[in-house]
């Protein structure tokens, strides 16, 4: 198999896997911090139990997010050394700053938070979890600054065949980051909210710890409504920005072969990628123009027109992403996002009218809805990355020019199989632990039970 394809596959697998856990870290950190804030303000032990219970789930998820992040940081040099040489002057800086500003903050204060419950004044302990939440979200800012530069390179000059930074502030205030970061931030909070909503709904359905889970439900329903609404709004803004900066991504996501004015929105398309035409399509007239420009007309460029445009600009080549991926991931993401907004509204309404218990199907749907943020996050990430094809840095460097020239297919296979095996084992362990603790509920994290949890002393020893 072609090393470029293997390197891409490895990047896709490790990144999607990493981003499977990261949004929950971003959002749940904030929710746990809010719970502990209430504990410190009211002094009620219930809120402490709540923080500890959700905190335990947070920790399990956090651990796997962190360790898979190490791979991300090393992977650029290992598999994409020519990319690293080409962009290092610009791309390395946000990565280093991320480690310095965010990784130290979250790892140090998470240690303080886990082990400091009885050792620190309440307010200092509370500060620790807020710093963890801050660190995690700062980390998102910097990695997205790096990614934004790949989507929309700014503040650089090509000198001696390498991209060199000419303006740090341009890289920092890349227009793309103002669309991408709010979207990721809200997706994190929505993921956290639906995680809490789903597990709370399960317990409310089974009438266990009703008081604690109702409070959790309440918090998550409010944040769920707010942030799924914001998610839609900034997602819409991001799509409009994409029409301007990466029109091919939008054309592929809409299966729009030829430029249209006014442009129609695809409700359902089965396309023929080879001949670039519809086999079957239902389209809503004018809707795409409306989405792109907030008005009923306006040209949205099509795949064929852009291909011709890029050939003239960048030379011969294939500039069309594998449209099936952007097309379907766009629909899954928007569909899941819309559904989450409706469900969050429903949850809040039922809670407000005190009718939750009367609608078990609503609680059941909310438990199932736990899967929705994961579908949306994964497909959103795939859309943004696959839609950039064939570029690794838009307009500057193609994917195949970025791989490590000396890394062989054999080495790539070794690491790919290794990661898949280890990651497979870890997701099994993570899901097992999360389900176990989520089902048992807060009794599993109460102080007195921790001592009982300890097994007898007759353990099989590692080394005799």
């Amino acid at each position, binding site marked *: 198999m072609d090393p470029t394809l293997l390197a891409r596959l490895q990047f896709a697998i490790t990144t999607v896997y990493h981003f499977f856990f990261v949004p929950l870290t971003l959002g749940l950190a904030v929710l746990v911090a809010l719970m502990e804030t209430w504990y410190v303000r009211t002094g009620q032990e219930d809120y402490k139990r709540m923080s500890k219970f959700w905190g335990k789930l947070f*920790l*399990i998820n956090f*651990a796997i997010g*962190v*360790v898979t992040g*190490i*791979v991300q*940081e*090393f992977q*650029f*040099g290992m*598999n994409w*050394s*020519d990319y*690293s*040489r080409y962009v*290092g*002057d*610009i*791309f*390395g*800086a946000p*990565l*280093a*700053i991320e*480690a*310095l500003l965010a*990784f*130290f*903050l979250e*790892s*140090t*204060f*998470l*240690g*303080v938070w*886990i*082990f*400091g419950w009885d*050792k620190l004044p309440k307010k200092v302990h509370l500060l620790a979890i807020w710093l963890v939440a801050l660190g995690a979200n700062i980390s998102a800012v910097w990695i997205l600054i790096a990614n934004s530069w790949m989507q929309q390179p700014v503040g650089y000059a090509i000198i001696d065949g390498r991209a060199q*930074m000419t303006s*740090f502030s341009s890289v920092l205030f890349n227009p793309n980051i103002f669309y991408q970061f709010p979207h990721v931030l809200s997706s994190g909070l929505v993921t956290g909210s639906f995680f809490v909503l789903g597990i709370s709904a399960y317990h409310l359905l089974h009438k266990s710890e009703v008081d604690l889970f109702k409070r959790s439900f309440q918090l998550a329903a409010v944040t769920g409504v707010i942030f799924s609404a914001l998610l839609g709004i900034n997602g819409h803004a991001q799509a409009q920005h994409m029409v301007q900066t990466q029109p091919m991504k939008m054309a592929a996501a809409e299966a729009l072969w030829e430029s249209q004015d006014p442009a129609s929105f695809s409700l359902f398309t089965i396309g023929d990628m080879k001949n670039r035409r519809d086999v079957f399509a239902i389209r809503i007239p004018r809707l795409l123009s409306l989405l792109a420009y907030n008005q009923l007309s306006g040209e949205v460029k099509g795949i064929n027109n852009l291909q011709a445009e890029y050939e003239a600009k960048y030379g011969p080549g294939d500039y069309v992403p594998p449209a099936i991926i952007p097309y379907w991931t766009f629909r899954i993401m928007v569909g899941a996002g819309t559904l989450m907004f409706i469900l969050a509204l429903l949850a809040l309404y039922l809670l407000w009218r005190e009718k939750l218990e009367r609608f078990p199907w609503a609680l059941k749907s909310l438990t199932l809805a736990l899967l929705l943020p994961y579908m949306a996050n994964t497909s959103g990430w795939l859309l943004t990355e696959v839609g950039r094809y064939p570029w690794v840095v838009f307009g500057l460097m193609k994917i195949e020019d970025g791989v*490590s020239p*000396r*890394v062989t297919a054999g*080495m790539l296979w070794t690491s790919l199989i290794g990661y898949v095996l280890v990651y497979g084992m*870890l997701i099994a*362990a993570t899901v097992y*632990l999360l389900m*176990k603790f989520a089902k048992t509920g807060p009794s599993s994290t109460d102080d007195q039970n*921790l001592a009982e*949890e*300890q*097994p*007898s*002393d007759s*353990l*099989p*020893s590692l*080394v005799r």
Partner: protein
Amino acid sequence: MDLNTIWFILIAVLYTGYFVLEGFDFGVGILLPFLSKTDVERRAIINTIGPHWDGNEVWLLTAGGATFAAFPQWYATMFSGFYLPLFLLLVALILRGVAFEFRSKDPNPRWRSLWDWCIFAGSLVPALLLGVAFANLAQGVPIDSNMEYTGGFFNLLNPYAILAGVTTIIVFTLHGAIFLIMKTTGNLLEKAQMTARRLWIPVVVLLLALLVGTYLSTDILDKLGVDPGIVPIAGFAAILATGYFLRKHLYGWSFTMTCISIAGSIITLFMILFPRVMISSLNPNWSLTIYSASSSDYTLRVMTIVAVIFVPVVLAYQLWSYWVFRKRIQAKPETLTY
């Protein structure tokens, strides 16, 4: 002093900090199966490093990120060249990282034993690989005129590198044992004391061998001369002093000495390297230097400003976290955080 030199020093400091800090938590991980008889003891051992290991590991991530930002050619050549060792390092660190979090989440002895193995192997293997990798940095590796590593995996496993790997394991183990002496009580404390005393002689022998090996395998003589200067001498003298302080039961001093010894060794390595960052064994002109491998002056300036502002802040709160958890850990269930 130009920015390239400043960044070379800063990266040397980051790796030195990493070896000194994660060195003891690797050592504690390696000792975990040997010093504990019961699950409670194991938890107590883990809790001595529980609040710190992750923060220590970030030193490596920051060193990697700083290398990427300041010397992208170095980052690209080293990370793609040392491919398989780095892959193994990553797998080991992944398993170790989740193991700390996962092991106590289920009381099943098999479950715990599995993750304890991951902590043990996840501490041993990185120590070995880091030693091997840094020895190869010091003695040079085949790098062609395009800055590409042309050797294979087994090029890296030469006798000098393996000696360095084994030495790193044993030094970290001693370092970890002394850390445990400062952080435990009772039975664990006694076992840690015995371990440290027993490990001292092998450590001295191995470090002496490594020193001789370094004179034979690297160009230290050309770089530092017959009298290598204060740093390597202090590094070696510190390990001799460690034995003295261990005998006198002055463990804070013993720990300080192992810190100095590890720091001295890593700084010596970077002194051998300077001003090169990757030595080509094929042709000295093909070596990467702090100039041929670096980012632009502009990027280095930006990064310097960032580092000047934030490094002191990071150091301050990491030190604070060590102060918060300064007390000894007792192997009693009711006092342990799970």
